[in-house]
């Protein structure tokens, strides 16, 4: 049964978390020298499976066979010793350590921490195309370089089997192409890859074989040369792909948000984070902001929300200058805000759902009057959100952290759409949300837009951006560098604009 | 550059004034009271922070009790001791006294002025029980006997001794905590020194300000103050700093200078044998005598005859000669002592 040709074999892997079965008897076979893709919707259990293979989590049941030998990983150290390396979905880098230190960490035994190690890093930097100096702090580097360091880390440890967990999520198309080129060269050198992505085109372009996982179980394997996107998607969700496309335009000519000459200096004295940003969002319009992550989207959104002070320029809401107003005053003036990181920025994890309904609304009716809170009103309104937005929860007294990500996001969107906002600022509203919830959130956004809501949308998901927006603006280096018509632009064209390659 | 350093050394020779002469008759210390039988008493003792074994005034009180046990027939089993805790609230002290009172102890001796309110409260509650309080005379009740001392008088004598012995005409004082009690030592010491040698330079410093009791427990900082004074030209330092005294003695040993101890005859303290040679003399405050005399007086029903204040005249304070380092100046010191007892010299308790 055991085949020597198999780089990795996972048999009957089961992993239970409190309340979730993340992996339920998963089987996976990866042959030497192949690029093996894993597909599945959010929360399907892909990352968990890979973390098990990488020794970061121990399976409750099942066996791992590497190069024909039964193994038992107690920690990543064991997996690394067995020639397995992993590039995580979220960067695993220490900002305050240098490039070299980040690479060396945990692998000091290989080449020491002196000259030999540096030489080896220099050598491998060329392989992954990293240009940064070794003694530079990682905090000074951009996303693409960080990704390269992550891969460098894996190579430095002499891994032959490399796991790439959603490596392309933060890259623009050109960077994706470069990454794929690297993957192919390395494949030629005999490396084996496990590759995870939600982007089916990418998966089909790079993989030799695809395994689909749904709700913790292996659904089946597919051949990328023959399978279509639609078939893959159906395997993943058991239904058709939802589409973010906006049907008819509801744009009016009433300006809701007007931003003039917005600028923001960098706190450490570097290049300005924002510079001369002008934009207008009309009632009933969705303005999408496209850009490579880290080009000022977060700063733009937070400046408009009043969370970053000392900005230049003006922000007008319905004609009133709110540049000097506090975040609370802006919220009271009718801005709703769905931040990009819900668990850190939108929710109080240890508090019950109804207390989370108060957050951001603690100053105005129906939740509060003259400094006093009306908890009964908060509870009633939370019930409404749970009902209307289909938040799956046994009640409104459970703590927010106990909900799944998608349900948390629905709660946040529901909250921010209550109190009749005139403007919604939504940053990555469906990031990390599963397909069903995604469709629900899109539907709510469209409904509010039809009712005259102005929406400023930031998203890294170009399909979502193109599908939902009435107007698209491209941000790069803290400046708006161009626009695009969502009706005609393709993700590839948009990606080109985002990298500035077109200008 | 000219720095004006060196202090008294620049003043050249230290001129000393001759001691006054007083007719011996008017300056004789009072004789000790006859021994009464204390076998029927149950004595309670409430210590201040530090308690028995602090090698300081609590220990002296304990010694008084022990002497009563040894000499007055008091039963050891009929004594009870309890100790205060640092920073405790007043009701803790009150409670301690009350528990002793409820336990049938009579008399009860409270050691330290921290017990003032407690004694006042409990003595009012138990008018038939006799109380004594050491270092405090603010409680005005018939059943409360204050046991207070003329610390300044004893300090005067060691100040005089320091002035007689110094070769730099500069001496130091190191107080543990800058409170009125310790200031009395300071004032008497300075008066004694300047009376003997009018040009003498007396440098005084405290380890911690009032209310910060760490000064009695910080030998490290005491060492630094003392070595600062020694480096600055002082060759004798009087340490009135509780447990911190050992820091002064250590500094004296390092600098090959002298120090003066406090409360008990520190030359004979078993803790201090390594540094005893630096201890020229000690200013003695006979809390033991006061406690012993008090128990004796209660047993003999002569409390009213106890002195209002323990001073040189009744041997309540004094100086020690163990080690023999001040033997040569004893006549002068005795002359000053006689002058104080006779009222010829009035020692002030404040500067």
């Amino acid at each position: 049964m055991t085949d020597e040709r198999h780089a990795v074999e996972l048999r009957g892997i089961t992993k239970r978390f409190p309340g979730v079965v993340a992996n339920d008897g998963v089987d996976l076979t990866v042959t030497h020298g192949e690029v093996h893709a894993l597909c599945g919707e959010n929360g399907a259990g892909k990352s968990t499976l890979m973390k098990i293979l990488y020794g970061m989590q121990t399976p409750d049941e099942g066996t791992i066979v590497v190069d024909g030998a039964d193994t038992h990983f107690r920690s990543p150290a064991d997996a690394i010793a067995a020639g397995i390396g992993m590039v995580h979905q979220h960067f695993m880098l220490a900002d305050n350590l240098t490039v070299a230190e980040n690479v060396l960490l945990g692998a000091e035994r290989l080449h020491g921490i002196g000259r030999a190690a540096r030489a080896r890093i220099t050598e491998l930097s060329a392989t992954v195309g990293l240009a940064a100096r070794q003694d530079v702090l990682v905090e000074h580097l951009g996303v693409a370089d960080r990704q390269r360091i992550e891969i460098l880390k894996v190579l430095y440890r002499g891994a032959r089997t490399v796991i790439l967990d959603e490596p392309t999520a933060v890259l623009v198309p050109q960077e994706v192409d470069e990454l794929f080129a690297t993957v192919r060269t390395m494949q030629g050198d005999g490396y084996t890859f496990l590759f995870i992505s939600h982007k089916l085109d990418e998966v089909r372009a790079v993989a030799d074989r695809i395994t689909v996982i749904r709700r913790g179980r292996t659904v089946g394997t597919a051949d990328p040369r023959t399978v279509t996107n639609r078939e893959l998607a159906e395997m993943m969700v058991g239904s058709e792909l939802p589409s973010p496309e906006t049907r008819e335009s509801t744009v009016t000519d009433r300006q809701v948000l007007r931003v003039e000459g917005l600028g923001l200096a960098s706190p450490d004295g570097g290049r300005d984070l924002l510079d001369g940003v002008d934009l207008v969002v009309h009632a009933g319009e969705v303005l999408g902001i496209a850009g490579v992550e880290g080009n000022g989207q977060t700063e733009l959104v937070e400046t408009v929300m009043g969370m970053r002070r000392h900005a230049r320029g003006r922000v007008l809401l319905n004609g009133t200058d709110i540049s000097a107003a506090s975040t609370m005053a802006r919220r009271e003036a009718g801005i709703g805000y769905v931040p990009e990181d819900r668990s850190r920025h939108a929710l109080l994890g240890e508090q019950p759902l109804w207390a989370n309904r108060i957050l951001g609304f603690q100053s105005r009716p129906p939740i509060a009057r003259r400094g006093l809170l009306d908890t009964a009103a908060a509870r009633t309104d939370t019930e409404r959100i749970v009902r209307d937005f289909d938040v799956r929860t046994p009640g409104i007294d459970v703590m927010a952290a106990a909900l799944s990500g998608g349900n948390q996001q629905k709660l946040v969107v529901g909250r921010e759409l209550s109190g009749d906002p005139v403007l919604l600022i939504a940053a990555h509203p469906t990031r990390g949300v599963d397909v069903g919830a995604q469709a629900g959130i899109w539907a709510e956004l469209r409904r509010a837009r039809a009712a005259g809501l102005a929406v400023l949308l930031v998203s890294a998901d170009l399909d979502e951006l193109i599908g939902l927006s009435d107007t698209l603006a491209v941000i790069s280096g803290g400046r708006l560098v161009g626009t695009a018509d969502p009706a005609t632009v393709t993700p590839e064209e948009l990606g080109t604009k985002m990298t500035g390659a077109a200008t | 550059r000219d720095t004006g350093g060196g202090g008294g050394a620049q003043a050249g020779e230290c001129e000393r004034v001759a001691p006054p002469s007083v007719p011996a008759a008017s300056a004789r210390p009072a004789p000790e009271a006859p021994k009464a039988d204390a076998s029927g008493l149950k004595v309670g003792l409430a210590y201040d922070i530090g308690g028995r074994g602090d090698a300081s005034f609590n220990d002296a009180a304990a010694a008084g009790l022990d002497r009563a046990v040894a000499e007055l027939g008091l039963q050891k089993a009929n004594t009870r001791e309890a100790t205060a805790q640092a920073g405790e609230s007043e009701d803790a002290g009150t409670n301690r006294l009350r528990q002793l009172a409820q336990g049938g102890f009579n008399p009860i001796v409270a050691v330290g002025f921290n017990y003032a309110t407690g004694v006042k409260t409990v003595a009012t509650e138990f008018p038939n029980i006799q109380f004594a309080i050491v270092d405090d005379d603010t409680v005005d009740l018939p059943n409360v006997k204050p046991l207070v001392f003329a610390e300044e008088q004893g300090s005067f004598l060691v100040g005089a001794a320091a002035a007689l012995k110094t070769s730099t005409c500069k001496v130091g004082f190191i107080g543990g905590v800058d409170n009125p009690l310790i200031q009395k030592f300071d004032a008497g010491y300075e008066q004694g020194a300047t009376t003997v040698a009018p040009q003498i330079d007396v440098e005084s410093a405290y380890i911690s300000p009032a209310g910060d009791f760490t000064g009695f427990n910080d030998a490290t900082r005491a060492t630094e103050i003392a070595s600062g004074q020694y480096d600055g030209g002082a060759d004798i330092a009087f340490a009135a700093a509780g447990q911190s005294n050992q820091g002064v003695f250590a500094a004296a040993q390092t600098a090959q200078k002298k120090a003066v101890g406090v409360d008990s005859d520190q030359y004979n303290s078993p803790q201090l044998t390594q540094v005893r040679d630096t201890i020229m003399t000690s200013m003695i405050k006979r809390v033991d005598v006061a406690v012993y005399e008090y128990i004796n007086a209660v047993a003999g029903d002569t409390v009213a005859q106890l002195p209002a204040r323990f001073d040189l005249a009744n041997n309540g304070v004094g100086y020690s000669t163990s080690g023999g380092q001040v033997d040569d100046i004893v006549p002068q010191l005795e002359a000053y002592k006689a002058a104080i007892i006779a009222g010829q010299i009035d020692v002030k308790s404040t500067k």
Partner: protein
Amino acid sequence: MTAVLDRARTLPGWARSALIAAALVAVLSVTVTLTGQTQLTSGGTASAAVRLGLPILLAGLGGLWAERAGIINIGLEGMMVLGTWGAAWAGYQWGPWAAMLGGLVFGALGGLLHAVATVTFNVNHIVSGVAITLLGTGLTKYLATLVFTPVSQNPRQSPRLEGFTEFSIPGVAEGLAALEAQQRVFVSDLAGLLSGLVTGLTPILVIGIALVPVSYLVLWRTAFGLRLRSAGESPVAAESLGVNVVLHKYVAVTISGALAGLGGAALVLNPGQLGYLENQVGGRGYIGLAAMIFGNWRPAGLLVGSALFGYVDGLQLRAGGEAVHALLYGATLVAVVVAVLWAIRRMWTAAAVALVAGLLVYAVYWSVDTVPSEFASYAPQLVTLIVLAAASQRLRPPARLGEPYRRGEGR
């Protein structure tokens, strides 16, 4: 002038530090000359600074080890208290080297307890630290009552223990003393300050100071140190690379406790103390922590912090309010120099602030003759507070300091 400044900015770190140190000595020298307070730069003050700074330095190093691994250690105080007991207990029986070991072991036990609470049970670090200080103090008092009373007749004091014999570096010490005695501007001041470093030395002092470079080398130049720091910067990344984060945190916090315990031993073995005294630690653990923050979580920085603390404390103890008063004069000079430097760099607001601060300090200096002893006693704390207020925004604590960490639960 600007060119000189630019060059100064490009100087290597050690040269800049030397330059700043020289400037400070110059300021002190001017102050001594103008105020006549020779104690400001005397060898005795320098020795006092070294002795008083040592326990703080060791506590600070303890803080450094724990906090570099991401664990806030406000329990240093309690660990120092445990260390004083351990040192006295071992020391009175087997001598000063045993005392050091005793302090080390008892402090380490306190550290281990902190590690169990914060790493294994994820208790808030400050909460655990407070509890450990409470427990350490109580336990120590109990043990002292139990063990020391029979031998010392005193529950609050240990028997006297034998200390280390002091030594001076032959040749250098005498030379510096001679130089200092000449009272020449600058040269004698420098000699006085340096002589504190070569006279009255004890093994524990030498070890304590040596632990600064040793800590630097271990933490920044070894694989173990890299792993330990990674646990404070990004435990999840470290874990993903096979580093046993929990183990490193445990080791770091235990070492931290051991160093604090050594600080307790230093206190017990301090010339003049030579024994356990109840409450003798007196907040030095907290001050060590402050010195470490002052030093921006770096060994050299915390050395400067504890030296500053020891210096101000030694000065006020030896020379009292007048010397602290003279320090105000020195502070005015520093403020003016800083204002001029900033003005040259065209940082006008900063320069103005420094100038105004300088003027304020000068006004205080001018209006009183001496600093009341009540405030002079706490000059070290005041200085720490002011320096932190001025410099806190340049500080860079470890990125994940104080955050809970659970194995396998990172994102």
